[in-house]
Structure formats: C-alpha cells, structure tokens
C-alpha cells in the first residue's frame, strides 16, 4: 500500500520494496531490528479511524514483519490523504489509513493473529462494517471486545 502510495501520489515513480531486490527507491526497507514473530505495543493516533475501532489508545499486536517504511521516508505516511494511524514503541509507523476513503487501512502487523471468535479484531470488523448499505448485514454492534 505504501509503495503504491509513493508511486501514484508522492511522485516516487520507482518506489520499491527491498524484499524484491535493490532496484528503484526503497520505500519499504529491512527493519534494523526484525519484528518477525514478535508481540508489540502500538499507540493508536487519537482521532483516527483506527482509534475509533480500537476504542483505546494502545493495543498489543503480533507481527511477522521484517520490513517497514524507510526511516527517511516516514513523512510520506501523512501526506496526500494518508495518515499515520498507529506507531510502535520506537515511534515508527505501524499502521496507516486514508482520510478520504470509506476504509483503507494498512497495518505493519498482523491483526488476524489476535482475532478470536469472542473478540473479533477491530480492523476486520471495521472492514466489513464499511461495506455499503444494502448488504446482507442484519445488525451491527461495533462495540467490540478488543484483543490485546
């Protein structure tokens, strides 16, 4: 999502992900300290969609990520309609969202790994809740038992 954002909106037409090789401008780079199979605490941006979904200021999440937004390009996560939705304990971007879109959320952690039948993850509830009226929704209670 950040590579597409960089290419289409920021103007870094050769934006690349370091995992695919060393061509282009690496927007996504290897983390100095891998977060592979780690549990992290994310601080959610006040006023963001993600904050409304979580209903709290921080959350514990699991991550399998070894890559993240390049330190020198952290600023692009809050430009051209994108907004930082969460950061980790080091202050680096861990979630993004668009302010001009019904639901466009990216996480540099894996919310599906903390979801459970009794506590569905807010990100996935938010995704399905964003579908337009007239869907098969019978009722929607978005007050969640948050994981983490």
């Amino acid at each position, binding site marked *: *999502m950040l*590579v*597409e954002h960089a*290419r*289409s909106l920021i103007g870094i037409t050769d934006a690349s*992900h370091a*995992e*695919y090789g060393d061509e282009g401008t690496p927007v996504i780079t290897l983390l100095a300290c891998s977060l592979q199979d780690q549990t992290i605490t994310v601080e959610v941006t006040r006023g963001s969609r993600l904050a409304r979904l979580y209903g709290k200021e921080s959350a514990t999440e699991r991550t*399998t990520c070894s*890559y993240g937004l390049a330190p020198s390009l952290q600023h692009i996560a809050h430009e051209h309609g994108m907004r930082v939705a969460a950061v980790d304990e080091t202050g680096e971007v861990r979630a993004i969202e*668009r302010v001009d*879109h*019904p*639901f*466009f*959320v*990216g*996480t540099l*952690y*894996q*919310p*599906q*790994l903390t*979801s*459970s*039948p009794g*506590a*569905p*993850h807010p*990100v*996935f*509830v*938010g*995704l*399905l*809740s*964003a*579908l*337009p009226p*007239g*869907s*098969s*929704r*019978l*009722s*929607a*209670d*978005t007050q*969640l038992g948050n994981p983490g």
Partner: protein
Amino acid sequence: MPTVVVNVLIDLTAEHPYHRATLNALQHASSHLRIATDVRVIRTDAIDDVDDIVRPGTAVVIGPGSPYRNQDAAHEVVRAARERGVPLVGT
C-alpha cells in the same frame, strides 16, 4: 440472503497458519456483525482482471506473506480500491 463478497489476495498455501488466521478473522468479524460473506481467495499470479476483484459492494484483504508472486498486480488492486472507494485492508 444476499452475500457480501470479500476478495482475499494471499499467496501462502491454504495450510499456512497466517492464511488460516486471515480467513478465521473474517469469519469472526462476519459472525459478530451477522453478515453473510463469500470469501474468495486469489493468488496474486492468478489476477486476470482487477475489475473482477475491486467492484462496488465488495471488500478486499491483502494478506500477509510477501514477497508476492505478482507484486504489480497487487499494486493495481490497491490502486483501484483506493480510487474507487472499495474497502481494503492490507496486513
């Protein structure tokens, strides 16, 4: 009952725990909201037409497990969802 289509782009095998966790998380959310979902798993190298995936009334999940088999196709799906206002989450 009408059903909501959720297209899941993921290259990990169906047996991979992150693949299973992604589908399970959708099931948890759909049960919570009482929404019937038709979840369609698509490998990035099997994307023929972005318009089939990014349609009004559908949602898109970009699953974990990069590098993707077809990174450019994944980017096209992201771009189309952004431009068309189709709900998308990338994990």
